[in-house]
């Protein structure tokens, strides 16, 4: 589904990613871990199409297509979803209006009819109940005045409505309290599907107890320095990053 080959990225004259290789198939959950500033968010943003990054080398194929040929909204319409590490506030635009516009933009590319407001409201209320979100959130402006945890929950709520093919969750667990972490993980697990792939960026092994990954990768200095199964995360928890940072990049 997603083939990242030798991807190198620079911003403001600084090399951030230096030859990333990553192969993601349907149904798989990949966890990406790594120290602060190692390039995890950069990778996520570049995959989603954020401007301001220079692709200096490598290529990315998404479902056989050159990902870089697609505008950010085309990538979203093609099923790529990014749960932001820092969700943006949009004052005056209600969650309801925004998310229905998003859903209908995506439905349109699938050749489906737009969903009307009443059906949408019903769908939204159901999904919010799953995440134990206060139903008044739907009428509030997108992320405006939301607490850190509420913003993260709102990202997963959006994902559950948009049902992407490839979901990239950038530190969705940061800022969540223990109960919210369980709820959000539960929400994510409900979306686990043989047709859907997920990339979960996190600093904490604890999240991976709830969302059990098929693969764990460690990103350091713009390389993937180690890949393994879920046990790698346990090992990291115990030993920290020091022992692998000097290691050779994996192929």
């Amino acid at each position, binding site marked *: 589904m997603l083939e990242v080959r030798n991807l190198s990225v620079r911003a403001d004259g600084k090399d951030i990613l230096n030859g990333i290789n990553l192969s993601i198939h349907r149904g798989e959950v990949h966890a990406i871990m790594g120290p602060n500033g190692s390039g995890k968010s950069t990778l996520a943003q570049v995959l989603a199409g954020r*401007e301001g990054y220079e692709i200096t080398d490598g290529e990315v194929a998404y479902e056989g297509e050159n990902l870089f040929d697609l505008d950010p909204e085309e990538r979203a319409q093609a099923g790529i979803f990014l749960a932001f590490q820092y969700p943006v506030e949009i004052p005056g635009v209600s969650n309801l209006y925004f998310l229905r516009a998003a859903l209908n933009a995506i439905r349109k590319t699938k050749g489906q009819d737009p969903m009307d407001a009443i059906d949408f409201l019903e769908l939204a209320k159901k999904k919010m109940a799953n995440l134990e979100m206060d139903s008044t959130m739907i009428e509030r402006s997108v992320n405006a005045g939301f607490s850190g945890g509420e913003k993260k929950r709102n990202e997963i709520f959006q994902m559950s409505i948009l049902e992407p093919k490839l979901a990239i969750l950038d530190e969705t667990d940061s800022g969540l309290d223990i109960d919210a972490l369980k709820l959000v993980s539960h929400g994510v697990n409900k979306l686990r599907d043989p047709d859907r792939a997920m990339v979960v960026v996190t600093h904490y092994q604890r999240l991976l107890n709830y969302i059990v990954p098929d693969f764990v990768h460690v990103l350091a200095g713009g390389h993937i320095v180690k890949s393994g199964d879920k046990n790698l995360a346990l090992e990291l928890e115990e030993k920290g990053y020091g022992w692998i940072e000097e290691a050779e990049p994996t192929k």
Partner: protein
Amino acid sequence: MTGTGRERQHLTELWGNLMSSATDELEILTTQDYKYGFVTDVESDSAPPGLSEDIVRFISAKKNEPEFLLEWRLKAYRNWLEMKEPAWHNVHYSPIDYQSIVYYSAPKSKKDGPKSLEEVDPELLATYEKLGIPLNEQAALAGVAVDAVFDSVSVATTFKDKLSEMGVIFCSFSEAVENHPNLIQKYLGTVVPPTDNFFAALNSAVFSDGSFCYIPKGVRCPMELSTYFRINAANTGQFERTLIVADEGAYVSYLEGCTAPMRDENQLHAAVVELVALDNSQIKYSTVQNWYPGDKDGKGGIYNFVTKRGKCQGVNSKISWTQVETGSAITWKYPSCVLIGDNSVGEFYSVAVTNNRQQADTGTKMIHIGKNTSSTIISKGISAGYGQNAYRGLVKIQKGAEGARNFSQCDSMLMGDKCGAHTFPYLEVKNPTAQVEHEATTSKIGEDQIFYLNQRGITTEDAISMIVNGFCKEVFRELPMEFAVEAQKLLGVSLEGSVG
């Protein structure tokens, strides 16, 4: 069935549908920058260019005006001769040659003016049809009565008979002068005196038509009243007057819309609007101004120099101004409220957009005279391209205004780095019990906001329109539904191509 939940759902859906049709419309509109730029081919009856006592007499004679009105005009004209064009505003334009302007132009008609819709020149009906304002009552927007002003004269007013059954007078200014001279004599110039300012004096001398509304005691006007202004003829100025009087306990919501053909020369629009609210009455006045803004390089466009003022004369009266200003090369206007009656309320909600070379200097004056008067000012300025946007507002609390309150909020949004936003709030407080609050913010439309919406599948064009509409929400929700939708569309079109 009437539960608020159900109602809200219904509204939400309506709103949603309107919004999505607005986005579809955007695609169509973006290919044609200003879709109202066409010219109607009608024979017109015009005065020669230039201004003199003779022209003032000519206009007055054309309208068979009573003596008092001619005298009133001449006095205004003589005053105007002594006055200087104001230069304190934050706009720049080359001097206007007042002798090259045509002060009267009317589509030629065989009779004295149409008495019924059947007699209106089909060419004119077609023009309004094309502007989306069908004048045929069967096709007309339900619940909106329209007075159509074409260049200097009113060409049609719809639903007049239906309204008169309730005692509501809604007609062209000329007709009001003919049929209700007492009301005109009683109220004309009582809110904006002819000596008020340079452009008001000019208007008082040469105004040719406009709308008049009178809502009698205790009547809640059953439909929105609206005037649609259209400038058609070249080199012509439009100088209309609107006078609205709400008698005790009356309520009226009034809408004003405007467009003009695309022409390379600038055209002057100097209107005067006067509102009078007596005890316990309420006037809600909404404008969506979309005069031709000129081309990308600033050639052509309307100079929109307008004096609008409302007088809350009675106790517990209320006047609300809501304006969405997207057009004109230059906009210069300050819809104001004079709060005389105790407990009276003044409101000003404004969205002003300047793109390309457009300039706007707009705001309000809230003059608190009566006790416990309160006012609210919400101003949203959006600047794109080389646009310059200034908010200028005065809050004045007079000595006797015990317990007066004002809240002002002025937000500016910048798109790109060649445009400008300026805020000039003035405050004069002469009563120590007054409570005055002012908030101001300036923000740049964020790339991260646009990217966030893109990442959810929304195109950049729609993202901008969504962000900007969100920014203006507090103002849009004051508009009647039809107007709100129109306003959203306009905003999208005016800002087309300004980011990304």
